[in-house]
Each structure stands twice: as structure tokens, then as C-alpha cells.
């Protein structure tokens, strides 16, 4: 029978006698997505005989193992990612400190380093820059783990990767990291982009799926859960219950309002803002606007948030600090 990977649309020829009554879990050897099939979705379409050979993504490059360094402060996160990579022919080394990770890269010259930005002793982007400055390490592919972001805030793709080759958000690690590593070590273009184009089947090959036994599937799912838990812990540090989540959202909204009030004051009074910052008279010069801003903030932000926080004041201080930097004061 013919099956199609739900993620990258790669097509597999598959012996349907292997499908048990509970169905079977498979992993696409092209994009590494795990998916299950059962007899209900059986497609009797015959396999094309004029199939091209398996694409290079399906095979591990060369006989020697791909060396992957994982650098993240959390040992449990490193272990979870290592578990995700376990079925692959990779040699995985984990480090919880930036300096140690950099020294390891110099020593072992891995094919790929998965690098977190917030590392103790040396930040990830510093590690990245140091690697890029060393010609002996030019072949090392660097994948940054996207920094913790606030899900309630607007975000966009990073403009600079500090010389890294790619970046990945934590929640994409279980599904996309393996294919990303293969892509970088074999210098391939992203499979997702070309393979997802509807109707374009010319580039698709017939590749053999990999069979996972129950333990392997459980181990993978467990690793996914760990990564997800890790991400949730970081993106929502103090809270778990719904009431606390609502409170966190209210805090974020209050912070956003504070930032907008301050940015509006600055936009409409640029000359005054600069003058006030230069002469240390910011709060006096902009007294009227600040009063209006405070009044709005008090109207819109509930007292229970205001009494324990000073988001508006922090936003003003932030503006002053930034402007001072801009004006080189």
C-alpha cells in the first residue's frame, strides 16, 4: 500500500500485513515525524514503479557518527533532547555551562551544536561568536535554541542569529530537530518547504519508513512531554492553576499598557523627552502627559496589580535608560 507522511507528504511503500488491529506507529525517515496508521485509512493505490531512489535525507551521512553537542543549563532538558536523538546514529554530548560547552566544541569539533542562549558562565551568543571566530571550527553547524519568549507578546523571526546556522523553538524540537540536524550535516535545503508544496510530487521519493517498537515510541513520547514541561515551566515561571494564569495575563496586559503609554508620550514629545533627559528634568517637563498617562493606567489596571507592581514607573525608567544610551549620556 501507499502511505503519505502527514507532515512532509513523503510517500512510502508499505507492507500492509504489518498493520495490527491497533494500527502501527511509524516514523517518517524523511522528516522524522512520528505518526500512526490503521487499517481504516488504508489506501489501496498501487506503488509507482518508476520511483526515484531514496533521497539523501533518509540515510545517515557517512559511516562515522554525527557528533552533536547539546548545551543547556537544565540537565533534564539535555537528557530529554538526548532521548529524542537516541534512535539516530549520533554521538550526543551534553553540557550545562557555556564555557564548558565552548571548550568541548574546541576539543571534539562536533558536526552540530544545539546551543541555548541563556547559559551560565558564557552566554550562548558569545559561544556562537567564539566558534565563528575560530577558523578550525568553521564546519561546526550551530543551531540556537530560541530564548524564552513571552507567548502573550508579539514576536517575529530573529533578524540576527549571531552567526549561527539556524534556530529552533523548544516546542519544535521533538518534531523538527532531527531533520534539521540531517539537513545541516548534509547541506540540504529544508525539506518542509519543497515537500509541502501541494501538487508538487516530482521531488518526492519512495522512502522506507522506520519501525519503532513500543518502548521506543514510549521513550520518544516521554521525551516530548519533558521538553513541553520544561518549556511551560520557563514561559510561565510562577504559575500553574487557571486563576494564577489569568493573573499572569493581567500582569502582562498591565505591562503592555505601561509600555504603550510611555511610547506614546515619547512619540508625541520627542524634543521635550530629549531635553528632559539631557537636563534631568524629564518628569517636570512632561508633567501633564505623565499625569494623563498615570490616570489612564490607574483606570485600566486593577488596584490589586498596581499595589504590588510599578510597571509604569519601570517603563519610564526603561525609556530614560534607552534614550540616555542613544544620546550617549
Amino acid at each position, binding site marked *: 500500500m501507499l502511505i503519505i507522511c502527514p507532515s512532509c507528504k513523503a510517500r512510502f511503500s508499505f507492507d500492509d500485513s504489518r498493520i495490527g488491529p491497533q494500527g502501527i506507529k511509524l516514523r517518517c525517515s524523511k522528516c522524522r515525524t512520528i505518526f500512526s496508521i490503521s487499517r481504516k485509512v488504508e489506501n489501496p493505490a498501487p506503488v509507482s514503479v518508476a520511483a526515484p531512489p531514496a533521497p539523501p535525507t533518509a540515510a545517515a551521512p557517512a559511516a562515522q557518527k554525527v557528533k552533536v553537542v547539546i548545551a543547556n543549563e537544565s540537565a533534564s532538558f539535555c537528557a530529554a533532547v538526548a532521548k529524542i536523538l537516541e534512535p539516530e546514529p549520533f554521538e550526543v554530548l551534553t553540557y550545562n555551562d557555556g564555557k564548558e560547552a565552548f571548550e568541548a566544541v574546541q576539543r571534539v569539533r562536533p558536526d552540530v551544536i544545539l546551543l541555548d542562549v541563556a547559559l551560565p558562565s558564557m552566554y550562548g551568543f558569545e559561544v556562537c561568536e567564539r566558534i565563528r571566530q575560530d577558523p578550525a571550527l568553521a564546519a561546526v553547524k550551530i543551531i540556537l535554541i530560541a530564548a524564552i519568549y513571552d507567548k502573550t*507578546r*508579539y514576536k*517575529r523571526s530573529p533578524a540576527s542569529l549571531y552567526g549561527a546556522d539556524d534556530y529552533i523553538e523548544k516546542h519544535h524540537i521533538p518534531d523538527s530537530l532531527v531533520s534539521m540536524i540531517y539537513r545541516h550535516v548534509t547541506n540540504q535545503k529544508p525539506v518542509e518547504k519543497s515537500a509541502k508544496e501541494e501538487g508538487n510530487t516530482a521531488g518526492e521519493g519512495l522512502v522506507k519508513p522506520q519501525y519503532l517498537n513500543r518502548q521506543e515510541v514510549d521513550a520518544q513520547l516521554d521525551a516530548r512531554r519533558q521538553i513541553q514541561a520544561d518549556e511551560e515551566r520557563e514561559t510561565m515561571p510562577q504559575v500553574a492553576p487557571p486563576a494564577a494564569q489569568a493573573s499572569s495575563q493581567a500582569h502582562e496586559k498591565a505591562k*503592555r*499598557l505601561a*509600555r*504603550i*503609554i510611555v*511610547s*506614546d508620550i515619547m*512619540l*508625541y*514629545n520627542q524634543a521635550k523627552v530629549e531635553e528632559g533627559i539631557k537636563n534631568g528634568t524629564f518628569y517636570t517637563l512632561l508633567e501633564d502627559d505623565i499625569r*494623563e*498617562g498615570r*490616570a*489612564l493606567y490607574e483606570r485600566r489596571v486593577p488596584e490589586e496589580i498596581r499595589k504590588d507592581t510599578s510597571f509604569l514607573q519601570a517603563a519610564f525608567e526603561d525609556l530614560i535608560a534607552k534614550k540616555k544610551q542613544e544620546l550617549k549620556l
Partner: protein
Amino acid sequence: MSFINYASREINCKIVYYGPGLCGKTTNLQFVYQKTAADAKGKMISLATETERTLFFDFLPLALGEIRGFKTRFHLYTVPGQVFYDASRKLILKGVDGVVFVADSQEERMEANIESVENLRINLTEQGYDLDKIPYVVQYNKRDLPNVVSVEELRKELNPTNVPDFEACATTGEGVFETLKAVAKLILVDLKKGK
């Protein structure tokens, strides 16, 4: 709510340009005003303070064709964009027939855009309107600037319901009339449905 003047046989419709501070609402109106024939427009009233804020409204009656023997006259208003002039914004939204949301495409104004769309929805609801039901279009302004967010991202954040949207550069007039025509058309369709 459009106002019908039987004596002059005119239907008067109110279009409000909404959006964050300095996003180009007034610039939109000024361009329309400049390009409209003198006999087709009324006087433009701008109430600005010494700090050059658009504190109250700009007003531009603009004749555009006829419906069943009645001339349609569009009154274009802007609201003060600064976040703390919410009372004025609510006042100006009274009796609105159509809304143009003018977004500032610059990355650093994304939060202000998002806040302003939320504020628009809340203020309309308070007046008994539903943003999803009234004639409504979105304009992504300042497309000529270097630090703009892509239209796809703007659309995702600011126009999840996929209303008609337009890229614009109000200072040169690009996209200004397209936006106005789109909202005017939606209003006319609405008026015809109501009869």
C-alpha cells in the same frame, strides 16, 4: 447609524479612521481632502492643541454618487490615537457607519496596534456595535519605511477575520483611496440591504 436628510435628499454616513498614535489617520484624511474637487467637499475642521495632537476630529463631507435618488455624503473622522484619549475616541465612534483601522507597520508600534484594535472592539461594543458586523477595513500604513513588519504578520495579528485590507503610504497617497473606496462600498451595500 446613517442620517437621512429628506430636505436636501442626502444620506449622511460616518466613517471613522481609528488607530494608534501617529499611525497616519490624519494624513489619510488630508490626502483625500487635497484630491477631492472643491465643490464635492466641505470644510475640514481640525482641532489640534499646541502639541499638534489631533485632539478631536477632522471632518470632511464628501459626495459620492446616489442611492435611490438620495445623494450619499461621507463624513470622515479621525480619533486621537494616543492611548489616554479614550473618552474622545468613544465620543467620536457614536453613530459610526464604517471603520478604517489604520495600522502603523513599524515593528516598534506592533503592541500599540494590537492595543488599539482591542480598544476599538471594546469601545464599539460599549456603543452597541459589533466590529465583526459593521463595515470595516484595515490599512497597513507606512509601508515605505525600512523597519516594517511583513503584511502576513500584520494580517495575522490585526486582521484575523480577514476583512478587506490594504497596504498604504499615506504621505504619498498610495492605498489611501483604495481603503476609502472599500469601506464606502461596504457601507453602501449595508445601506441597500437595510432598505
